[in-house]
C-alpha cells in the first residue's frame, strides 16, 4: 500500500502544485471565468489520461518511456517559463495591484496570458497523468502485488496531492496579490528551480542530454527514497536523492539570479515619483 501511495503522491503533487499556483493566481485576481476553465481543463486532462491508460492496458502495450520523458521535459520547461513570467509579472505589478483590486484596470493580466495559464494547468496534469494512469491500471495485472491495497494506496496518494493543491489555491486566494507575491515570490522561484531540475532529469531519460550526469551529491539522508517525505520533497521541490551535476548547475543558475531579482528591494518607480512631484507643482508658480 505504501509504495503505490508514495509514487502517486509524488506524481500527483507535481501536477497539483502547478494547478494550485495557477488557480491561486487567477483566483486572487478575481478571474472566476478563467478559473472555471482551469477546472474544466484539469477534468479533461484526467479523462484523457484515463482513456490512454485504459487503451494501453487493453492492448497490453507499455507507455513509450522515452517519449513520455520527452513530453515531461517540454511541458516542464513550459511550466518554468510560465511560473517565471508570473513571478516577474507580480514583481512589476506588486505596487499597482492594490489599486487594481479597488477597481482600476491597471495591472490586469492580458487575455492571452490568462488563456496560457488555463492551457498550462491542462498540460501539467497531462504531464504526470499518463504515467500515473498506466501505473495504477497496471496494478490489476500484477500477480505478486495485492491489487486492492495497492490501488487504495495510489488513490490515497492522488487524493492527498489534490488536497494539497487545493490548499495552495485556497491559501493563495485569500491573500491580495501584493501580499501573495511577497509571501510566495521566493517560494515560487524555488519551485520553478525544481521544475527546471526535473526537466533536465527527464531530458536525460528522454536521451536528449547525456553530459554532466555524474552524481553531484548524495542526499539520501534528506530524501530517503520510498518514503512519504521523499515524495513530498521530490514532488514539490524537484529534489531527488541523487542529483546530477547538470541538475545542480541549472538549479543554481536559475534560482540565484531569480532570488536576487525577487528579494532585492525595489526602487521607486519613476511614474510614482512623477505623480507625487506633480502635486505641489501648481504652487511653485
Amino acid at each position, binding site marked *: 500500500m505504501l*509504495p503505490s501511495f508514495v509514487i502517486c503522491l509524488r506524481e500527483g503533487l507535481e501536477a497539483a502544485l502547478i494547478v494550485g499556483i495557477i488557480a491561486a493566481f487567477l483566483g486572487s485576481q478575481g478571474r472566476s471565468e478563467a478559473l472555471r476553465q482551469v477546472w474544466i481543463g484539469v477534468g479533461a486532462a484526467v479523462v484523457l489520461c484515463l482513456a490512454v491508460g485504459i487503451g494501453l492496458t487493453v492492448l497490453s502495450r507499455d507507455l*513509450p518511456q522515452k*517519449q513520455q520523458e520527452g513530453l515531461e521535459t517540454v511541458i516542464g520547461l513550459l511550466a518554468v517559463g510560465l511560473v517565471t513570467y508570473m513571478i516577474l509579472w507580480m514583481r512589476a505589478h506588486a505596487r499597482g495591484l492594490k489599486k487594481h483590486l479597488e477597481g482600476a484596470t491597471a495591472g490586469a493580466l492580458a487575455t492571452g496570458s490568462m488563456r496560457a495559464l488555463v492551457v498550462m494547468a491542462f498540460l501539467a496534469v497531462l504531464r504526470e497523468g499518463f504515467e500515473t494512469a498506466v501505473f495504477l491500471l497496471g496494478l490489476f495485472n*500484477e500477480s505478486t502485488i495485492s491489487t486492492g491495497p495497492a490501488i487504495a494506496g495510489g488513490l490515497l496518494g492522488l487524493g492527498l496531492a489534490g488536497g494539497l493543491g487545493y490548499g495552495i489555491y485556497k491559501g493563495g486566494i485569500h491573500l491580495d496579490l501584493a501580499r501573495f507575491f511577497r509571501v510566495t515570490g521566493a517560494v515560487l522561484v524555488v519551485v520553478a528551480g525544481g521544475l527546471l531540475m526535473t526537466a533536465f532529469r527527464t531530458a536525460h531519460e528522454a536521451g536528449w542530454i*547525456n553530459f554532466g550526469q555524474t552524481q553531484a551529491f548524495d542526499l539520501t539522508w534528506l530524501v530517503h*527514497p520510498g518514503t512519504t517525505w521523499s515524495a513530498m520533497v521530490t514532488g514539490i521541490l524537484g529534489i531527488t536523492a541523487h542529483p546530477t551535476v547538470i541538475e545542480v548547475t541549472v538549479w543554481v543558475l536559475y534560482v540565484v539570479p531569480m532570488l536576487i531579482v525577487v528579494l532585492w528591494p525595489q526602487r521607486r518607480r519613476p511614474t510614482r515619483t512623477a505623480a507625487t512631484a506633480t502635486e505641489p507643482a501648481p504652487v511653485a508658480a
Partner: protein
Amino acid sequence: MSIRPTLALTGLAAAAALTACSSASSGAADLGSGTPAAVALVATKDGCAPAPATLPAGPMTFTIRNDNAPAVSEVELMKGSKILGEKENLIPGKTASFSLRLAAGTYTVYCPGAKTNKATFVVTAAS
C-alpha cells in the same frame, strides 16, 4: 503578451501528444530479427546484478522485477551516460520489461536507491 502564448502552448501540446502517440510502434524497430535472449534484472536492497551477466550481441528482453526493495523505484540500462532502456515506478513485486538489440560492449545497469546501485552487463561479439 497577447494571444501568442496560448497558440504556442496549444501547438506544443499537440506536437508533444503526437510524438507520444506515434512512438508506440518504434520499440519493435530497435529489436531487429531473431528471438530475443532473456536477461533478468532483479532489484533488491543490495543491488541489481543482471542474470546472465554476459550475452552475445543481438536482441534481448530485459525483465525487471523489484524484490522487496521499496527504496528502488527505477532501473535503467545505460551505455556510458546514455540511457538505452528504463522502467520507472517499480514498486516491490512489480514486473516490467523492455526489449532492444545490443551490440558488443560494456553496459551498466543502474538502480538508484540500492546499496550497490550499479552493475556491469557485458555483451560479447555475436557467435
